[in-house]
């Protein structure tokens, strides 16, 4: 190493010092600590006890609430992610047409996603889903003629509480839309012109030009939205008063982790739960990577 290189390396390490500190104290260190904690029984107030695999054994074999939380999270993800993706792609395509006032529509659709996960908006949704005087049941009864008393009870019903949360998540489609819109604008117009000359209609263009061009963005968004929906917390905490009710029907993984750690002070058990969530997220992401042959990158020949 020349002295110039050494100087550059030295100043580089100074530049990334915040990152290194965060690796030690905020991310890396805590991950190892979480792993160690997951093998312990610890209530913060008395010394931790090493219990080996007890926590994991209990979680998998003797904890119906864990399976419940896992099922609820999967249910929520399986509904909210695909519907959200189809809607946001659809809106992006609409917005990519040459119509007037695009900036206004873009703002109207994007704004909810910016404020969507806030506590204030969760309070609003709690009110909208009020089964007697909320906006949702009023609109349902107004458009279909079903009396309000026979409309879904939403947050008070075991069946309708999760769909209510899915609807809340769909209000945030603008976040995905903005990214798809950028993706659409990145598809060369020459491809559309060429396919038109070849006699392709709009529907064919959509499947042969638009979708392949958009596929890297879809792939990225798919991973991000699944990871995010596995971590949903704020809305549920507010809309169900921190309980995940009724009858645990909205108890999701993060709500359960929070309850175990900060309500029951079972730090070891909660750490084990968090690590299981981590492994699930990693596995889902890995599976998507593995089956990502449908993703088409520009400049790469399809094998």
């Amino acid at each position, binding site marked *: 190493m020349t002295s110039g290189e050494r100087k550059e*390396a030295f*100043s*580089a*390490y100074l*530049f*990334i010092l*915040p*990152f290194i500190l965060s*690796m030690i*104290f*905020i*991310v890396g260190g*805590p*991950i190892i*600590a*979480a792993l160690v904690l997951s093998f312990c029984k610890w209530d*913060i107030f008395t010394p931790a006890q090493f219990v080996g695999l007890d926590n994991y054994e209990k979680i998998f074999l003797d904890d119906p609430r864990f399976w419940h939380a896992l099922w609820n999270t999967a249910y929520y993800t399986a509904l909210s992610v695909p519907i959200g993706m189809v809607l946001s792609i659809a809106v992006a395509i*609409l*917005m990519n*047409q040459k*119509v*007037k006032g695009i900036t*206004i529509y*873009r703002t*109207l*659709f994007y*704004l*909810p996603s*910016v*404020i969507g996960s*806030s*506590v*204030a*908006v969760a*309070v*609003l949704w709690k*009110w909208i889903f009020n089964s007697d*005087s909320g*906006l949702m049941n009023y609109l349902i009864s*107004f458009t279909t003629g079903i009396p309000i008393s026979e409309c879904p009870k939403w947050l008070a019903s075991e069946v309708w509480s999760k769909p209510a949360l899915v609807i809340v998540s769909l209000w945030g489609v*603008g976040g995905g839309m*903005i990214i798809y819109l*950028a993706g659409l604008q*990145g598809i060369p117009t020459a491809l559309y012109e060429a396919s038109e000359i070849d006699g392709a209609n709009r529907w064919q263009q959509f499947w042969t030009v638009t979708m392949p061009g958009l596929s890297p963005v879809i792939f990225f968004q798919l991973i991000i939205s699944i990871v995010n929906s596995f*971590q949903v*917390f*704020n809305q549920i*905490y*507010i809309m169900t*008063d921190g309980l995940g009710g009724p009858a645990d029907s909205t108890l999701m993984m*993060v709500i359960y982790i*929070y309850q175990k*750690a*900060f309500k029951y002070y079972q*730090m070891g058990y909660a*750490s084990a739960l*968090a690590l299981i*969530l*981590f492994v699930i*997220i990693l596995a889902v992401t890995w599976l998507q990577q593995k089956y990502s042959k449908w993703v088409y990158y520009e400049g790469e020949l399809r094998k």
Partner: protein
Amino acid sequence: MNETTLKNANGFWASKKRSERITNIVVTVLLVLGGVSMMLPMIWMLSTSFKALNDIFAVPPIWIPNPLHFENYPNAWNIVDPQTGRVMFGDDSWNFFGFTIQGVNFTTYLVNTLFISILACVGATFSSALVAFAFARLRFPGREFLWYICLATMMVPAQVTMIPQFVFFKTLGWYDTFWPLIVPAWLGGGAFNIFLMRQFFMTIPYEMDEAAKIDGCSNFGVFWRILLPLCKPALTTVTVFAFVYNWNDFLNPLIYLDSNNKKTLALGLTNFVSLYGQDYHLLMAASLIITIPIALMFLVGQRYFIQGIATTGLK
């Protein structure tokens, strides 16, 4: 070219134009319908916030209450008990840079939130740019490896590190202080921000750095005087994201803040929900006030950060 083909061609273009016009109308109708339904919850929020208690449960709903109950806003802000008219936390006090102020209300929560959000936001923007600069521009042993680690941390859910972090900050004596909410932001501001900044730095030609270095600029000088001014869209994006994140953050304040006079807006609002239960006119007034600054920030910054997302998020 004879007359028939010319006519046919005209017919072709005319029908193409007509089909385009029809598509245009359909698209506009769909967008207007969609836009209205996206805004409906916000309109409902606004409408409820001006109602009297007796009117909020009326079916069919009264969209424009008469008279408009403006007093809901000060009542919500000062946390007034609607039954007794008593100010709830009037006897409590809070601290503002050494001054003791009587009466805990949404002003308290707002000041706390601003303090945390601004410091965390500045920290996240500055430190993510620093780190990203090194990864984009400087050569050092272990760069590739550290970069992969940085990307890998994006996959780690916050809940994994939450518990050990809590224990760590509690041991430092930071429980019920603002530090656990601010300090992490100064340490790189999260992998996503670093990634975003680095992507942007990569789009700036390296010749800029070299020219500056020939003129005697240090690495920090290149960073501070050459690259940062060119990165305004990316910087705005990170700043807006960090500010919105901290403003909306709920889980961290929930874990770390305990005293009522240290609470943030998000946490104070939850408090308010449990106090008021069904008094949705007050809840909506409070929620609306909290939402407006974020909405405004987005409206002002959107030109910048939509560009920021478009240029850095994809290519």
